[in-house]
């Protein structure tokens, strides 16, 4: 009887500890929330599966002049960061310590320590970055695969090289030519204002300007002009962070249907903020990353390549972007260059 009573007490206690928040603790039905990968149930690579040797070879044909255009912003103190995000470096300077030199030739050295979150500066969102409840790309029940330090599935180490074709879409020119540019007074150059929605039709208009058709494996970059505020750091950080122009969800779905591998922009989220539906958080992130394994690349310096495209009349280039094999990470800062 006493044992039964104890069992009953324990049951009630355990129920109150673990049973009470059952809806939050239960594993979600990921098959109902996230689409399966077209690359199979074990796929952790996502859209970069599409970058085949044939895709890379075809992209190499875009190198005609050898001109390299920078597409990353400097990673340094004062650039716009969100909320509590941080990025700091600590220099270990042995060169300045008398007696610390090596050998009779007095060799000295310096090193750095990065104390930084990964989603800062020009950076890539991995496919382990965004999910719905605890369900991530390819119906992965991510609750089973997280540790205190990293992911055990969908980490950056799984993705393939980005040796592919890049395409720049100049949304500023699209909106200017359509006579619908609503600029932000803080921008020194023409820019789309925060909240400006870029549609599928706008993307297609931007492609048509340079007679480009998207093809499987492309990485698409959208110039909104918003990056002008990033370049004014720290003076315009609040304005930059306070919203942004960007693509809407239907445009993201269209890009996914074109089988692109990445979508980047000169903004901090690529998608329009505030979004078209005030009750839905970051729908483009969900569409591209969670549903399609397509990477988002944020804070991309798109203006230079947009200018280059205007001069050369070529909006395509060979994309040079290397992502470290950072095991279990959800994102990392990257350097990007466009080679034409």
């Amino acid at each position, binding site marked *: 009887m006493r044992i039964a009573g104890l069992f009953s007490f324990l049951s009630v206690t355990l129920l109150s500890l673990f049973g009470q928040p059952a809806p939050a603790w239960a594993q979600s039905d990921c098959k109902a929330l996230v689409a399966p990968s077209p690359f199979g149930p074990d796929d952790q690579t996502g859209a970069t599966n599409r970058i085949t040797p044939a895709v890379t070879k075809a992209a190499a044909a875009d190198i005609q002049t050898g001109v390299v255009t920078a597409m990353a912003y400097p990673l340094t103190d004062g650039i716009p960061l*969100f*909320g*509590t*995000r941080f990025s700091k470096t600590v220099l270990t300077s042995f060169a300045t310590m008398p007696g610390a030199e090596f050998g009779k030739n007095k060799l000295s050295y310096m090193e750095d320590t990065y104390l930084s979150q990964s*989603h800062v500066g020009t950076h890539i*969102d991995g496919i382990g970055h965004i999910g719905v409840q605890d369900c991530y790309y390819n119906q992965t029940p991510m609750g089973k695969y997280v540790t205190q330090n990293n992911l055990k599935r969908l980490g950056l180490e799984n993705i393939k090289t980005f040796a592919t074709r890049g395409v720049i879409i100049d949304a500023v020119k699209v909106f200017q030519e359509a006579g619908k540019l609503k600029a932000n007074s803080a921008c020194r150059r023409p820019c789309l204002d925060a*909240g400006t*929605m870029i549609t599928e039709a706008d993307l297609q208009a931007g492609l048509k300007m340079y007679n480009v058709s998207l093809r499987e494996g492309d990485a698409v970059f959208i110039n909104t002009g918003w990056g002008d505020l990033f370049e004014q750091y720290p003076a315009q950080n609040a304005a930059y*962070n*306070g919203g942004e122009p960007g693509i809407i969800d239907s445009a993201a779905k269209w890009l996914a249907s074109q089988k692109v591998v990445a979508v980047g922009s000169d903004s*901090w*989220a690529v998608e329009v*903020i*505030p979004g*078209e539906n*005030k009750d839905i*958080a*970051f729908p483009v*992130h969900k569409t591209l990353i969670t549903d399609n394994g397509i990477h*988002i690349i*944020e804070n991309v310096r798109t203006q230079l390549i947009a200018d280059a495209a205007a001069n050369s009349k070529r909006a395509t280039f060979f994309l040079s972007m290397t992502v470290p094999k950072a095991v279990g990470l959800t994102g990392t800062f990257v350097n990007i260059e466009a080679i034409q």
Partner: protein
Amino acid sequence: MHRGLRRRLFLAGLLACGVHPVRAADRRYRIALANLDETTGATLEGLGFMGTEVRRSFELAARTLPVDMLYFDNAGDPARAIANTDAAIAAKIDLLVEYNADPDANAEIARRLAAASIPALALIDPIPGAPLYGPDNRNAGRIAGQALGAFALETWPGDQVLGVLIGDLADPGPAIRDRVQGITEGLREALPSLSLSPLDTGGQSVRADALFAKLLQTQRGQRMLIATLDDLSAVYAKNAIEMNRRQSDCVIVSQGLDRNIHGSASEKKEIDPNNRGSVVLGSVAYYMDRYGYDVLPLALRLLDGEKLPPRTVTKHILITAANVFQEYPPFDMN
């Protein structure tokens, strides 16, 4: 044949032939918002929202609707509100959303709009003959009172508790009166004999700090349920609590849920999933920064010939650390 049936058959025939009659929903409307006051720093309705936030909500909501918007700033000036009405009429608007506090000016605005056969939709303050959209201050107050009462019963069962009201209590307007009434009713549902101490900030939220600190020092060991009438007062009252180390016997529920308290993209987030231990239990949302999303669909219904109810009220819910990100997701998710 019945006329309605004949019309339906006619329309069905048109559709079958691929001819679509022009529906009201297909046309774009020209709608003007005459905003109460967009002066920098001016706040609305005794809460922390600003006129620019109301306007911005219309700009954002309009993006996906068949409307072309015109914006006017009444600047808190009744004469300017009337002049803005004339300008809106001259601009051949289809409907005016009027947010103006002066009843006499609103009566004149109603007359001028009627003469021009332009319908109006009133924000918060009534316009004769126009449907009204705005907060349900009494209900919002009641939600706060009920939350405080429930907290006391659950956390301090059987303890003697003092209720404290902090805010611009001398404001003669009906909004404050209704909120206070709602808070009192909500509190007394759970604690019928609760006594309430009013602390009037005179419209300067910063005074909540000193006023409440003084009360705390005279009421040592007393459990307190604090209802603040605006979020900034809640932040200052919280400071007084922390300075007097009274976190264990005080709890605050506020009104508004403006950026002072949910933080948005700023680092200081008082109501936040990572700040569940705050003495600020929550704030009742008024969503003035989302008005456009509610009001423009109402305006379209009115323009499409629907008869609206005389009064439509904002949804009010208590926002706490447990649900704040569902209502106001932080921007740091990229």
